[in-house]
């Protein structure tokens, strides 16, 4: 009983195999061990949820507070005022040839984005415990959304920066075209650190209390209140380890035309930031399976 034109084995292979639910996706739920894949494709599939999480953060922040959107401006603006008084007026710290207020404010705008993103990313995961325990979605969405939601604050503070530039008659250079890349570097660094800290914060809830301390320390390790030109050479190069140096100096260079063009060091900074992001991502994914049980 040989079918025409078909040899035995080929016939077997061609026979219609009853595929269990061939059209439907098959998902296997099994214990994972050690390091797991980032599953970026799945994260992409959940981009709408990411959008809604960012949107919720922004909406709630501006709805809940009396001053609403003003908070986005008040924080960097008053920090600038304080810096200008103490560092600019009293300590007479040099400011690369531009007025000290705009010198510090141009640095505070990306800094606030970075610092806010880092602290939000750290605390949001524990803060979203009810979500994590009740619904499945790629947990990476939480810290990513936390950092992304800072974009709105950044945009508002940036508008004030433009206003100040007008006031001080500072004309931005064409280098301003580099700003999106500089912002991306700030975002990468913020998320990279945020991923590490948020995953650790689930295991050890006191991690989030160390964030303000870390932020403050990092603030002074970044040339925000002072120009990096104050530092002697060996330290200057070590600065490359801190990606925020490149971001802050880049902002001043692009907008205010200071002589702080990011050199080859910024490539090194970008590598550091990327390394933080990737390692943070893998660490986060590794710890992820315990989140719902521990948080």
């Amino acid at each position, binding site marked *: 009983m040989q079918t025409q034109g078909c040899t035995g084995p080929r016939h077997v292979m061609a026979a219609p195999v*009853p*595929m*269990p*639910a061939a059209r*439907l*996706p*098959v*998902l*296997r*739920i*099994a*214990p*994972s061990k050690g390091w797991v894949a980032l599953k970026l494709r799945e994260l992409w599939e959940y981009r*709408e*949820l990411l*959008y*809604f999480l960012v*949107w*919720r953060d922004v*909406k*709630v922040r501006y*709805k*809940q507070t009396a001053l609403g959107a003003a908070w986005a401006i008040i924080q960097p603006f008053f920090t600038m005022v304080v810096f200008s008084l103490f560092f600019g007026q009293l300590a007479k710290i040099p400011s690369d040839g531009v007025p000290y207020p705009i010198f510090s404010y141009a640095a505070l705008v990306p800094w606030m984005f970075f610092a806010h993103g880092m602290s939000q990313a750290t605390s949001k995961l524990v803060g979203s415990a*009810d*979500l*994590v*325990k*009740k*619904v*499945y*979605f790629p947990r990476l969405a939480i810290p990513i959304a936390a950092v992304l939601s800072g974009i709105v604050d950044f945009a508002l503070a940036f508008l004030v920066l433009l206003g100040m530039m007008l006031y001080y008659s500072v004309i931005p250079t064409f280098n301003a075209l580099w700003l999106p890349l500089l912002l991306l570097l700030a975002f990468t660094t913020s998320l990279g650190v945020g991923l590490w800290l948020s995953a650790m914060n*689930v*295991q*050890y*809830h*006191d*991690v989030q209390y160390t964030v303000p301390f870390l932020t403050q320390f990092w603030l002074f390790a970044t040339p925000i209140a002072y120009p990096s030109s104050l530092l002697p050479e060996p330290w200057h190069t070590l600065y490359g380890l801190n990606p925020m140096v490149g971001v802050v100096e880049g902002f001043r260079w692009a907008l205010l035309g200071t002589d702080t063009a990011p050199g080859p060091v910024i490539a090194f900074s970008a590598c550091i930031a990327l390394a933080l992001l990737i390692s943070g991502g893998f660490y986060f994914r590794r710890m992820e*399976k*315990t989140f*719902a*049980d*521990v*948080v």
Partner: protein
Amino acid sequence: MGDIALRVEDLSKQYRIGSSREAYKTLRDTFTDVVVSSFRRAGKLLHGRSGRAPELGETFWALKDVSFEIKRGEVVGIIGYNGAGKSTLLKILSRITEPTEGYADIYGRVGSLLEVGTGFHPELTGRENLYLNGAILGMKRVEITRKFDEIVAFAEIERFIDTPVKHYSSGMYMRLAFAVAAHLEPEILLVDEVLAVGDARFQKKCLNKMQDVGQQGRTVLFVSHNMPAITRLCERAILLEGGRVLQDGPSHQVVSTYLNSQVGTMAVREWTDPAQAPGGELARLRSVRVRTEAGQITDVVDIRRPIGIDMEYDVLKGGYVLLPYFHFYNEAGILAFEASDHDPTWRRRPRPAGRWVSTAWIPGNLLSEGTLLIWPCLFTLDPVTVEISVRDAVAFQVVDSMDGDSARGDWGGPITSVMRPLLKWTTQCSVDGDPAVATMNAKAKL
């Protein structure tokens, strides 16, 4: 093979003891653990004992070697006591937490509903929360937009859709939350005890919606403590106990096992040793049985079918007028009704010695859903003495299959009455006959 929706193989989940979750540690705890245990270890080494310090904290299996298969379109109830592993099972299947051992294969898109209103924010309006919650439950934005009006209408909150939900009543809040969830369209739906939502009328609406889901060929896994809902919605049920599958089968059987272990419903009770049987010199009780018309002993009875209660007894001394008697109590301890032997053949006549069986028939469509406990007695009438009296001798479970032809009709919510007779109803309309009403109607139309 091709119609499997879900296959679970030896699924197990281990937790640390103390709570159902692993407690988070502080850095200090870890630090002390590390320092203390290394000192201990060092101390042991010094004392000539080697090896590790005993593990801190024991573990337990919230789920152990659970295996089952669910076919496409099946609606399966998961029942069991608190801590039996029901929620852990749903959490693993919805990928919230990972199993420790074993695996599950899922064919199709899974929607899980472990809680309604997850991610709701009080400051946001109903509309905003609807979109947010929809996205969290895995709906696409276009899908939500397409179903928006339907969801709002289902929740009955049209007027308040742009009000922040913090101003909602708890009923409105839950209605909106459930409405979003009820409009999920995954191939497999996992639902955890969410029917205790809103008022009775809305519960019925949700139950109907869930039945629709089953009829559309969708697979549903449904955890509940509401046994009437389980028998109504599910054909099959899985009983978990201590993290293992105790029984897997037709829901009325599994529900009865569960209820038996819970309230001790027993359809039959026999006393094989006459000397130990309840009673005295006059008569002794030999057995009490709950049975169907066909004579089958059962502890789960369809609400529409008659139920026979047999009382089998030996009359040891003849010549007395005897009165077999039943008391029927519900779960709440309310005496639903009493009944005495009415058979005209033996009414007011002395009964000779021998083996007797008296059967009381409860008509169908009289009782309410739930458990009924039976307290049989045997009296003599002149003088009145109690010869036999056994509290809660047997019990049975009345279930409504929700086909719509019981006294429940199309009502899906709870019915709390002790009895639920199927009455004859007639309804008439005489509006057109009344000239005054007719004019009123005519005016209203204008």
